[in-house]
């Protein structure tokens, strides 16, 4: 049933559709209406879950981890400073193998204080052992929450996921979204049934000290699980498409890349605008494509290598920055291409930090700059786009 809803409501409805059993709630702009909507759904009886109000995001994650360890499907939401406050426990969640799902609204970090969209908060969590999915529509937000439980709760995976939506551009923007038929979701997503759990009848302890002779082996097991997620994400999406009729391109969604002279790699809503621009440029005879990076973890290593066969010029657009090195997406794309005989030219663009708007006009400029590299070769490793007083902006 299609209704108009914001990205935040899509997150709330996603948690409801997935039958989350414990929701730990702490508000932060621009995520607040997620937990407020869930509160309304719980109090009206439409959603049956334990709604736990906590005093900080750190506690929200603690509550989710322990709830998950009792065998309950746990959900929470955060953003920016809230997400970074949880950092310690994000690592705990994956180490403890708890398939928690969290919505994160991508918001810039302060100072300067900002509430607007950028990807620094989630990029800074890429080492935590969570799957990371960047969405470019409210429908994708809702659907990805369901798929995240499906993948995460597999006995051979047992890893948490963050489903990421841009601040305001998705979180507060109304789009038509289909709320999936609960019976179909029931068939698609079995109930959570972990083998080991906090249970007074069969008691176990979790998280104990491990000496150097076995610690690394536990980490190796997480590595194995994360490697399995590559195939698991594709399988879960295939089944999702068969059940609900929708899919999102797996780990990396290729749009008109096969014969492209240049491709931009982007994540989040900017990728959607880029597709519109790509069509306009194609109608002007310019062969460009968009590779939308959907999963940052697991990193789409194979897909990037496939992209290298399709095009010779890649512009990687980071909506975040790691000071002292290239942008995080560019760094990882280049890493994935290392060792290839025919390596495409890769240029890194830094754009849209702190919510600076990424309009079709700006993206067209970036596409054109990237196409020019065909004639000039790489002009510079990194170019910052839209900085007033720099580079012609």
């Amino acid at each position: 049933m299609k209704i108009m809803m914001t990205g935040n409501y899509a997150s709330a409805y996603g948690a409801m559709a997935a039958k989350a059993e414990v929701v730990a709630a702490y508000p932060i702009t621009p995520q607040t209406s997620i937990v407020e909507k869930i509160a309304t759904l719980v109090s009206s009886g439409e959603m049956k879950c334990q709604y736990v109000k906590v005093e900080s995001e750190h506690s929200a994650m603690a509550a989710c981890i322990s709830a998950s360890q009792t065998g309950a499907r746990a959900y929470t939401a955060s953003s920016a400073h809230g997400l970074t406050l949880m950092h310690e426990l994000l690592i705990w969640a994956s180490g403890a193998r708890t398939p928690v799902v969290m919505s994160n609204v991508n918001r810039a970090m302060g100072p300067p204080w900002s509430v607007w969209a950028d990807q620094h908060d989630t990029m800074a969590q890429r080492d935590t052992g969570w799957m990371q999915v960047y969405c470019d529509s409210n429908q994708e937000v809702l659907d990805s929450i369901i798929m995240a439980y499906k993948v995460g709760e597999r006995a051979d995976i047992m890893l948490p996921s963050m489903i990421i939506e841009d601040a305001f551009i998705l979180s507060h923007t109304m789009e038509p979204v289909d709320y999936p038929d609960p019976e179909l979701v029931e068939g698609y997503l079995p109930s959570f049934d972990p083998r080991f759990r906090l249970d007074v009848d069969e008691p176990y302890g979790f998280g104990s000290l491990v000496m150097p002779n076995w610690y690394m082996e536990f980490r190796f097991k997480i590595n194995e699980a994360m490697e399995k997620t590559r195939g698991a994400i594709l399988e879960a999406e295939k089944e999702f498409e068969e059940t609900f009729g929708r899919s999102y391109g797996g780990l990396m969604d290729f749009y008109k890349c096969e014969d492209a002279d240049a491709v931009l790699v982007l994540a989040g809503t900017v990728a959607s605008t880029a597709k519109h621009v790509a069509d306009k440029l194609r109608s002007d005879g310019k062969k460009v494509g968009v590779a939308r990076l959907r999963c940052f973890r697991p990193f789409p290593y194979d897909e990037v290598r496939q992209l290298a066969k399709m095009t010779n010029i890649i512009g990687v657009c980071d909506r975040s920055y790691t000071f002292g090195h290239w942008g995080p997406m560019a760094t990882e794309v280049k890493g994935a291409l290392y060792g290839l005989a025919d390596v495409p030219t890769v240029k890194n663009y830094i754009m849209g930090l702190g919510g600076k708007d990424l309009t079709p006009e700006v993206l067209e400029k970036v596409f054109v700059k990237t196409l020019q590299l065909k004639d000039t070769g790489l002009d510079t490793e990194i170019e910052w786009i839209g900085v007033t007083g720099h580079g012609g902006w």
Partner: protein
Amino acid sequence: MESEILGSMIEVRFHGRGGQGAVVASNILAEAGFLEGKEVSAFPFFGVERRGAPVTAYTRVSDRKIRIKSGIYAPDFVIVMDPTLVKAVNVVEGLKPEGLVLVNTKENADSLRRGLGITGEQKVATIDATGIAIKHRLGSKAAPIVNSSVLGAFARASGLVKLESLVSSIRHNVPVKLDENTAAAKEAFESVVMQ
């Protein structure tokens, strides 16, 4: 903007004051388009919303999936929900050369044209939405709820959505006084003055 490849997309900007219902109006318009099977999106200007301060909200309506997810800078239509905004804000900034601005005002279109700085092909439409809202007892005299009236006038002036779709959307989105809001929208639809 219209093209074979890109489809036909209309962009609307609403100007209101915080608390007047500009954001709700942008949502109602989007849903009216949605009820007609169109692709839509609606969003407020993402600043600090506060009572009395100027607020802008936006709606996109298209026959194709809307992939542009940036702000609206060259609207096809501008809707001004509060007459005092005309002096406070450049409400027609970016309005397309053949665009239309609808203003809630008692002032006549000619003098309004000068006040707005309207050029050439740009059109003006006016509606006394405040008067209609008060007549139908929507909100208070100090703070009338003008959005349903403004939208009714807009449906007629723009032809973007049908009155029935608008009325269904209004009835779905307003919390109280469904019949009064419906009546106000219909009255405004009939009384909008197009230049």
